[in-house]
Structures are given as structure tokens and as C-alpha cells.
């Protein structure tokens, strides 16, 4: 019950946020939501089926450019359909990419996804007639019927609605037969195969679902930032996404959201430190990994266990960290 009350409270804050927070924080919150969707998508792939991807900036780029080009050339399509299509196009690419990747795991998969990210950036640069290459593409304002989503508040609510739907979808998926199959694959592919899980099918499916989430997020990203260029989707963005899920907690949907929020806000807050930004960011990450190896969700769980434990704070700290 307490969890439900907390969730309702969080939802209420999210709903009234644009009316309470200054304009910039509405924008920042929208950015957190976009990154949260990417992190959930990546977590479904990496946290659940143990396929590490360093190429999600590439998927984000596909979604972003699809949404931008659709809005540019077919402005009649309502924004929700545009986002769905962005997700679908990205999912198709994800499936196509997932099949050859079935043979790869661990470092080799990381290499392949890393290369995928570079290939997408090159493709954007070389498809100049479509993407306007290195010059960049201005994204028109999204429309919902006759209503242009031109204000920060409108874009925030769009991102919020999409995120809520996708979070609910991910929660359901992970608790279903599919989610259990994903987890079984993570724990041991051989054992999963022996228990009758079609490993190849589910691993490919994970790629498709992950790409779909990231593609939808890409569409939101395009409308939020308003300008796309290949420079936006460099390898460091992919690394940021990986950091989000490791920091938040692998194999956890709430963890993905928390991780996305922490990394986005941290990145923003550290911008003022100029050339020390990467240094401070790196130091914080190392500290987090040292003291919270299970990510933030893992640490919170351990803390909750310690608080509710009958012996109170007297229990040995190392026992709860395990």
C-alpha cells in the first residue's frame, strides 16, 4: 500500500510539475523522461538478456531522424502516430541488426554495437539529400491534430504521457512469460534452452523491443531539442546510456528511470565546471560503483532491508551489502 501511495504522490508531482517549476526545469524534466525511455529500452536488452549495447545513440538517431523527416514531409500525421512510426522503423532496424548479433556475446557484441553507432552517424552524414548531413536538420513543431505542441509545457506532457505508457508496458513485459524468458537467458543461455526457452527468438525480440523504445525516445528527443545533427549521437551518448542503467540498476525498470534522472541532472549541473566536467563525472561514477555495486536500486533495497531488519542498525553492514 505504501508503494502505491508513493507512486500516486510521484504521479501528482509529475502532473503539476510545469505549474510549479521554472521553465528551464520543465525542459530538463522532459529530457530526463526521454533518457528514461532509452534507459528502459537498453535495460530490457542489457539488464534482462545480458546483451550489452554501446550503440544505442545510433538507435536514438534513427528514431529522431525518422520523426523529424515524417513531420517535415507529412505534417498531417499526428505526433503520436509519428512517434509510433519512429519506434517501428527503429525496431525493424533493431531486429535486422539483432539477428546477426545472435552469434555474438560479451566483448564481441559490445564491439559490434559500437560499430553500429558509428555506421549510423556515417549514414546520416552520407545521406545528405535526406538528412542534410553535417549541416543538421531543423525539426518542425509537432502537431496533435490542429494543436501545435510549441510550448515547453506541451512537450513535457507529451513526453510524460509517452513515458508513462512505455513504463507500464515495460513493467508488464518484465513480469510476463517474455520477461521471465529474458531473465532466464541472462542467468544462463544453456539452462534457458534446456527449459524450453527459444533463445534465438527471445534474444532477437529483446533487440527489437529495445530499439522500439529507443526509437520512440528519439522522436521525443527530436521535438524537444528542435535540431538534429550527427554530432548529437556520438559514442559518448551511448556510453551515457550504459552508465544510466548500471548506475540505476541492471534489470530494473525503476532503476533505469532513476539512473536516467541522475545522469541527466548530473550532466546538466556539471556543465558549469567546464573542463573539469568529465573528471568529476568519472569520479562520481567510480565512487558509485565502489559503494553501490548493485546500482541505486540495489543500494536502496539493501538500505530498506537494514531499516526493517529486527535488529535495527546493529547488524553487520557487510552482510546487507551482499
Amino acid at each position: 500500500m505504501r508503494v502505491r501511495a508513493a507512486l500516486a504522490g510521484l504521479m501528482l508531482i509529475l502532473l503539476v510539475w510545469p505549474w510549479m517549476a521554472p521553465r528551464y526545469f520543465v525542459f530538463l524534466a522532459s529530457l530526463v523522461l526521454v533518457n528514461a525511455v532509452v534507459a528502459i529500452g537498453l535495460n530490457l536488452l542489457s539488464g534482462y538478456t545480458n546483451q550489452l549495447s554501446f550503440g544505442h545513440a545510433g538507435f536514438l538517431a534513427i528514431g529522431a531522424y525518422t520523426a523529424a523527416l515524417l513531420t517535415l514531409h507529412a505534417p498531417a500525421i499526428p505526433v503520436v502516430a509519428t512517434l509510433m512510426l519512429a519506434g517501428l522503423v527503429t525496431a525493424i532496424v533493431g531486429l535486422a541488426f539483432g539477428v546477426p548479433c545472435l552469434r555474438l556475446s560479451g566483448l564481441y557484441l559490445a564491439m559490434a554495437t559500437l560499430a553500429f553507432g558509428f555506421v549510423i552517424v556515417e549514414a546520416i552524414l552520407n545521406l545528405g539529400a535526406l538528412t542534410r548531413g553535417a549541416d543538421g536538420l531543423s525539426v518542425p513543431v509537432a502537431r496533435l491534430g490542429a494543436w501545435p505542441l510549441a510550448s515547453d509545457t506541451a512537450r513535457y506532457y507529451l513526453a510524460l504521457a509517452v513515458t508513462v505508457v512505455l513504463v507500464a508496458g515495460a513493467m508488464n513485459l518484465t513480469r510476463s512469460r517474455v520477461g521471465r524468458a529474458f531473465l532466464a537467458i541472462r542467468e544462463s543461455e544453456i539452462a534457458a534452452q534446456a527449459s524450453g526457452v527459444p533463445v534465438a527468438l527471445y534474444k532477437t525480440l529483446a533487440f527489437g523491443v529495445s530499439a522500439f523504445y529507443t526509437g520512440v525516445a528519439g522522436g521525443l528527443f527530436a521535438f524537444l531539442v528542435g535540431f538534429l545533427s550527427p554530432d548529437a549521437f556520438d559514442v559518448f551518448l551511448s556510453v551515457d546510456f550504459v552508465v544510466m542503467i548500471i548506475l540505476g540498476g541492471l534489470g530494473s525498470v525503476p532503476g533505469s528511470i532513476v539512473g536516467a534522472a541522475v545522469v541527466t541532472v548530473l550532466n546538466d549541473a556539471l556543465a558549469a565546471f567546464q573542463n573539469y566536467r568529465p573528471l568529476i563525472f568519472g569520479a562520481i561514477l567510480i565512487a558509485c560503483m565502489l559503494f553501490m555495486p548493485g546500482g541505486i536500486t540495489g543500494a536502496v533495497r539493501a538500505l530498506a532491508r537494514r531499516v526493517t531488519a529486527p535488529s535495527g542498525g546493529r547488524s553487520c553492514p557487510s552482510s546487507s551489502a551482499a
Partner: protein
Amino acid sequence: MPFVIRCLIAVALLAAAPAAAQQGVSDTEIVLGGSNSFSGPLAFTGEQATKFGVDLYVRVVNDAGGINGRKIRTVFYDDGYRPQDAVANTRKLVEQDGIFAVIAPQGTPPVVATLDYLGQNKVPLLFPFQGSPIVRGHRYVFSGMTLYDRQSKMMIDYLVGPRKYKTFAAIYQDDEYGKAFLTAFEKDLARHNLKLTATEPVKRGATDVSAQVAKLQAAKPQVTFLVLTPGAGAQTLKERQKIGWTDTLMVSSGPLTDERYLALAGDAAEGVEGLSLWPDPVTSDLAGMKAYREAMQKYFPKNEPNRYSLSGYFAAMLFTEGAKRAGRGLTRENLITSLEGIKGWDSGILPPITIGSDHETQRQGFWVKVDKGRFQQLTEWLKSD
């Protein structure tokens, strides 16, 4: 006080704010800011242009009493050359830090990403360090660096005219910087009924250019343009020296003609020519350049004078001139009017500056040749009109 009430007060205060004076200008201070590269591929340039450039002149002005009684304060954020971070930073500067104007941001993608937002919010974007002509024709934008099409015009007219060269090739960075130059070269050569005989792209960040150099050598151009960054530019010169390709004149673009590229290339740079956008930061004896070096010596004695810090220093200088002319009642609108009114203003660094309704603050360059590891001036300031 309950949280909700505090929030309501905050909202009320925010709503009341626009009714007050101009954002970013108080009785005692003017706030300027910018998103720039402090990490990523252009980190060196970004740090020099802001902390050792804009801030250098700001110190000079503030120590001399400020602008019409107001001191300048600057805020800079790191975007690492990523457009989305530049958008976020710029929004934070405008909405949270309440800056008066954006000064000296860097790089075409990050700058262009913020154009629409700044235009909608009527925030001046002053002297971005980028040369793509894409920033032309915006009411709230004043360009900084001499735009690439003007640089191309000066280079081609000088080489085809007084120097009488006929065949040209180019090695260029495969992005908007390289392609903008390439388009301009082709257009300017067409005016003389000439064209580029060979072009070779280099990926951004690539260090091996041997294949490109070999192909260009086979095309036998009299002149080879280098539209690259210092690393790749120096590598091209070394590669040429290695394969003994001597019967071509290497000419560097304006953004490339700097001391770093010379230092990286070493003796392979001897005899290379190029378009210089700034007087030599170390040796020039122009009055403004001496003042620049004295200020650097006074405030940042450990930092070497260089073109990037000079460009930021000049940007702050030009802003100061505009703001002084706008007077005590400084607003964004009258800053724009007063900048547009600058005619024949002598900075002591560049030839007299005239800014018209086209908002181009710089349109000059002169020809240099590398002699014993330093740029020697070959011409007076060239014209690009």
C-alpha cells in the same frame, strides 16, 4: 512556510520579472554567457576563447570601471560540441542565469542548434566562433569569424589574380566546415572559368591521410587547399614531405592557419601559405595587439597568446564598444541598433570595423607564408566584398 505557498510566490515573482528592467542588466552589472567546448574535439579552442579570451578583456574593462558604471560578469557552460547539450546550456543561461546576451559560442552544429530558440526569445547571439554562412540574416545574430564564403573569395581571387595559378585541388574535412569551403571554392573558381581538379575528404578525427595525399599528387594541381583541423593538416604536410611531393603550393584555410598547426607540422610546414584572419598574436606590433599581450601577461602570465584567446578577447571588446554606445539605458534592442551603427571603428587589432544591417563583424584576412617556423605577412588586408 509550506512548500506550495513558496512555489506560488516564486511563480508570482517570475511572472513579475519581465516588467522590470532588461534581463541580464542591473544597476551594477551586465551578465553575459555562452555554451562552449571545454571537453570534446575543440576543448582547447573553447577554453582559450572564453576563460583566456572573453574573460581577459572583461577583466581589463572591469578594472577600468566597467561599461557605463556596470561591471561585466560571464557564465560559461561545457557542451562538449554536442548540439543537444548546447541547447540545454543556452536555455539554462537564458532562463536560470538570466543572461543579457550569448557571447562567443563555438562550432557550427552547437551554435545552429540554438538559433531558433534565441531568435524566439530575442536574445542576441554575439560573435559565434564559426564561419558557416548559415548564421546570416538573423536579426539577433552578429557573426564573428570571417564567414567561409568570404574567406574562399579572398583566397581564390588572390591566387588566380596576382599569383596567376590555374589548377587547384583540395583536401577537406568531411563535415560542414569542409563542405562549406568546397562549395565556396567551386563557386569562386567558376567566376574565373576554373574548377577544382581533385578533392579528397578526410573524416573528422582521422590521422592517416596517406591515401588522400597520394591521390592528390597524381592529379598534379599547382595549388592544394587544406581545409582541415590542426592535427590532420600537420599530418598532410608531413605526408607530403615524406613522399617528396614538391611541385604544389599548399594553402591553408583561415581556421587552420594557426600556431598549433605550425608547431605540429614542424619543418614540414616551411613554405606553406595560407589566409590569416588575425595578426600574429606573438609578434605583431599593432597597438591593440600589444595591449592584448600586456593584458595576458598581467592577468594570465602562464597562458601563451594565441589566435583563439585573441578571438574571444576581440568579441568582448566589440561587445563593450556596442554596449558603451548604447548608453546607461542598455537593452537588447538598443545594443543591436548601436552595433549596427558601428562605422570605421578602430580596434587596433583588425582594420577599421564597419557593421551594417548584414551583421557581419569581420570580413578580412591577409596572406601569409611560413618562413623559419613563423607566419610572415605577404599582403595587406585583402577585401572580400
